């Protein structure tokens, strides 16, 4: 099996996997970074969202072979102490219900606010539209993104 050198959360990893293995499963099964979730496997739900070079990407659609050399950040590496402004806002608003989709939501929101720290309501709703929350915590997510934006500004 081929090996790949990955840079995840500022750490170097070498993994042995099939070429076509999605980054999602390398993170979860090979590296034990299980904060990145499996929801659909086809890029439709956003549960698996990670940052690749600072952009929110669907790790279920990226093959491990394409991830070599990239700077990858997962929910585990978003902040040292779990206190990234987006995480703080999520806690303040108490967003999660079952919680399963939330690391993906947080990764989408944090990448978005990095590029636009003063978003309008419409911009927030558009940015978060790709992430499904089956518990429908959307009102709280919307509010938390606003709270986070205020913290970042």
């Amino acid at each position, binding site marked *: *099996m081929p090996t790949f050198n990955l840079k995840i959360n500022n750490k170097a990893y070498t993994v042995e*996997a*099939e070429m*076509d*293995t*999605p980054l999602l*499963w390398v993170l*979860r*099964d*090979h590296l*034990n*970074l*299980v*904060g*990145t*979730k*499996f*929801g*659909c*496997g*086809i890029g*439709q*739900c956003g*549960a698996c969202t990670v940052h690749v070079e600072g952009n929110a990407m669907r790790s279920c659609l990226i093959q491990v072979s394409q991830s070599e050399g990239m700077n990858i950040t*997962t*929910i*585990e590496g*978003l902040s040292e102490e*779990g206190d990234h402004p987006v*995480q703080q806002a*999520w*806690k303040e608003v*108490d*967003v*999660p*219900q*079952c*919680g*399963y*989709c*939330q*690391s993906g939501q*947080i990764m989408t929101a944090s990448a978005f606010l990095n590029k636009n720290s003063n978003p309008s309501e419409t911009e927030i*709703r*558009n940015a*978060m*539209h*790709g*992430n*499904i*929350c*089956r*518990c*429908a*915590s*959307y*009102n*709280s*997510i*919307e509010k938390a993104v606003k709270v986070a934006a205020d913290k970042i500004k």
Partner: protein
Amino acid sequence: MTPSKQSNFSRRSFLKTSALASGGMLIGFNLFNACKSDAKVPVDISQLNFNDFNAFIKISNEGKVTIFSINPEIGQGVKTSMPMIIAEELDVPWDDVYVQQAPLDTKNFNNQVAGGSQSIRQNWEPLRQTGATAKQMLVNAAAARWGVSPSECTAKQGVITNSKGDKLGYGDVVLEAAAMQVPENVTLKDPKDFTIIGKGTSNVDIDGIITGKPLFGLDYKEEGMLYASVLRPPAFGQVLESFDATAAKAIPGVIDVITIGEKARNFLSKGYVSWTATLSGTDKVVVIAKTTWDAIKGKKAIKAVWKDESPLESTEFHNKTLLDLLDGTSFKTMRSDGDIDKAFAEADEVLERTYESSFLPHNTMEPMNFFANVSADKIHLVGPTQTPEEVAKSVAVLLDRNVDDIYVEMTRMGGGFGRRLYSDFALEAAEISNTIMKPVKMVSTREDDMTTGVYRPATKYRIKASIKNGEISGYQLKEAAVGGNMYGLIPNFFPAAAISNYQVDVANYNSNITTGAWRAPYTNFLANAEQSFFDELAELMGVDRVQLHLDLLEKAKQNLDPKIEYIPERLQGVIKLATEKANWGHAKEGVYQGFSVYYCHNSHVAEVADIVMNNGLPEVKKVTVAVDCGVVVNPLGAKNQVAGGVIDGIGHALYGELTFNNGIPQSNNFDTYQLIRMGQTPQVDIHFVDSDIAPTGLGEPTLPPVGAAVANAIYKATGQRLTKQPYINHIKVEKILS
């Protein structure tokens, strides 16, 4: 009719204590039954015995409180709200309280509480008693040390004070308290003195969730664990004939390809029901691999041949079958008041409408999965299940093992909505591990989950009402459902008692497509039908929609039938609150309002939907909700539940649809099945009725009425009455009035 239903908590010996060897006091208690007389609270915290007690509270020498909760969390917040109730009566600062998920025990399951809307209601009184009893023991211990009477002492925020002003922390007296007699009578707080209940409290798992800690079933791992992907029949009605695994076995990460099914068939032959397609008695091909991806890839490489065992059904067939049932005479009458036929015969006017709904998959965000490690001496099972008792008992039968050898651990669940009440996934995992005798995790893909589910049954209602002298003189509800839907209590919901000639009739078609509980079972579509019908009925009668309801409820108050489930006063209360907050009847230009009200899961809910039309399609802007669910224990969690139910209800009423063609579900992932997303989501404006009645369900009751509120608003905007779900398929764009 009483305004509140008292919980049947009788004071028995439900609580015992010990002094911990490591310091501090341990309280064991039982929420449902008395403790066994020989039950002992351990002195070593690692020896907690959940056979004898179903929960424990530890109070340390520093006064810190740890609650070992047996409640699994499925997203309804019970893991937070139950400890809040104990801490309130114990009177400790919430910041000093820690909640730890206790592993489940398999031996004494009648003690276990598997979360859900009802659990708060059932445990309200016992949880308060527990906290208050522990507090009283601490007070008694302090009083004894001071040599004063306990009545001269008060306890607040973890500190006991006597009349001279001396103070002792709970931690200072835990050892003496542990040796005290358990008091038989304790006083509960006056609800107006609550300091924790009614204050918004964050989810106790929040830190783990926002940092991606392994909390869920899918995250669970053990040394040497393998992964399994199961190939099941593509169509309901098919079974495996043969398969070729050559290509799958050539994949490097694939370890083995096996079949399972024999144990499941055996299990079914003992009289157990087949909840889902995954347990239909067919052989299934299982790919065992080193990683999830290898297993999924291996499964795709299997070449399988399936044969038909029973008829393969399609959606047209279901539609025709259910409509034929509605037209036919093979009904079972669930409730009959007065003389419905006479009412129709003598009516000035009759309104009759048929409402139709689709099958719905649960689509929990975390797909089904379960870990099993079957060995010669024991069976270890871990995963997201709402029914650990069922899992243990079923696996014992499945593998012909002693239930005492089975140890079930529950993880946090990535959503339930009813799906995790069925334990097919745990049985599969157990049969796989039993075959390979290794620790293994069965993982379903989204496609597996959506196409081999246990669905909300496709259901049709026909509602008929008669009007005589400007009053509703008769009301008849007929249900035709795949697999059966309505159960005992529903016929006693509104408008039973409000209309003198009243009848509910049901008919079922038994399909090979598996159906079962789905969020707010039985009423999730019924409320849509009923509340759309009343909107049309009010219009036909030329009366105000809201006033019609208030008047009918006035009539219901005169009916003293004890079987009636709803409380008219409480329904009137939420109607008034919702319409006032929504500014009902005074919508802004371009905004159309729809109203709906419903009682279910012991809670009373009224909703007003505000919609606007955007390019010929309705956009739900806002939903105003009034909820009477008794005491709101945790407003933060409660608001999440309410908003979630409303948005989920809108999503499924507008978009939810699973059709079948020759037994094959026609959607299998989120590209072909539409779930509501952020951009389609209204703001939910939530108002709770002030109450000190025991809390009732919140996970379900806001969902059923909302589809009708939206449909009624769409009618105002377009003049079109929507009777078929998903509504989005039936909105005629040219019908827009504006």
